[in-house]
């Protein structure tokens, strides 16, 4: 259990971002980025994830710690079934750039958009 656990998690409501503060570095993740990479089974579908589209305007309504191991994020579109483990949050934070580019690529290939339809 030596995965990285943030010291602080700050939800910036107005800028719709989540700030993860680790002892040596801090990361800022957008609500949209977190939303489209939700670990929820609804999204992940057991290894065949459904591409999430039109989430540009999504915000985070609230966040809460689940047990000792994860963060529950409640999004403004009603999605609240994703439990972001500390390990997954760190993975998202540290690979943010690559994952975001990959997501944009997927959107383009699917002919979809970040904007809500």
């Amino acid at each position, binding site marked *: 259990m030596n995965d990285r656990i943030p*010291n*602080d998690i*700050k939800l910036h409501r107005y800028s719709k971002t989540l700030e993860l503060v680790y002892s040596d570095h801090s990361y800022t993740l957008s609500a949209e980025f977190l939303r489209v990479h939700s670990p929820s089974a609804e999204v992940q579908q057991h290894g065949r994830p459904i591409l999430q589209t039109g989430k540009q305007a999504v915000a985070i309504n609230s966040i809460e*710690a689940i*047990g000792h191991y994860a963060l529950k994020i409640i999004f403004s579109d009603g999605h609240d079934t994703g439990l972001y483990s*500390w390990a997954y949050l760190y993975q998202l934070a540290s690979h943010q750039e690559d994952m975001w580019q990959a997501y944009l690529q997927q959107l383009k290939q699917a002919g979809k958009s970040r904007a809500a339809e």
Partner: protein
Amino acid sequence: MIEVSKEKIEAALSTCHLPYLNTDVVSAGAVKSIKVEKGIVSVQVTLGFPCLGQQAGMQQMLSAAIQHVPGVTRANVVVNWRVRPHKTQGGASVMPQVKNMIAVASGKGGVGKSTTAVNLALALAAEGGRVGILDADIYGPSVPMMMGIAEGTRPGQVDNKYFTPVAALGLQTMSIGYLITEKTPLVWRGPMATGALKQLLEQTLWDDLDYLVIDMPPGTGDIQLTLSQSVPVTGAVIVTTPQDIALLDAQKGIEMFIKVRVPVLGIVENMSLHTCSQCGHSEAIFGEGGGERIASDYGVPLLGALPLDIHIRQQMGKGKPSVFAEPEGDITKRYRDIALQLSASLAKMETDVKIPNISVLSD
């Protein structure tokens, strides 16, 4: 006259290894004060776990070590304990009146989980702890019967909102069994069941507990998972029997707790040996060394092994668990040994489980 210094006393104490501490009493940080007044030495040792059964022996051992220091004419050693509360999720302690919650779980039913839970709770109390037991086994609440609580006993109510726990054999007890009749099984779906359990836990007015032992429902299904996620458990004990099929399920239990980051404090192996009541011959009916194997696989301690002894069951059936019925018996010794290992490891555990500080800013 030889001058007795605090340093010399400390050096003498640092040669004393107390049982269950795994280190000497000085390194463990248990020495609270040393006073030297002309040859008379007073030492105060405070441990993090109740150890009534060991107290006199410890005091004697420490006194003897101090008396060996030249110049000491008398040694007064007091050993006592103070159980620390453990911080739980969300930072603040969710239940300030409960310092530690120990979940007793098993991968499958029928391995003696409830028997272990009840006897462990009694053993912790016998060592001087303030202990409660919560029977979370909604499908087969057996704690009331095992504790000899009369059928039809209901917990007291306060403000139509809270329950007062039922006192029995020195424990504070609460069970879903108090709220239903023994003959009606509960036909509940997952969310209802977990909701009911959370209520039972949170709306019971526990009275300043050092330890709350939770007898979990058997298995690793939805209810167990939700429970271990939503209840601020300090640590878990897995009960198993030595046969392969039970061990397989015990592994699942361990994996589940690892997943939700509840520390597994150890494994209790039940029914490890059967001694024939006729001829006295001992036989490992369910196989040998299974508990040990799984413990070493996961790097958790094997806290103890209990024999398949007809008395354990008979006493339980009469509502007099072994630890209560035979306070000096061999079975009780084993349970008390397990209880001490457990509480000592809880005391050593970091008080603050690392949980991020969560804040919401309107910027």
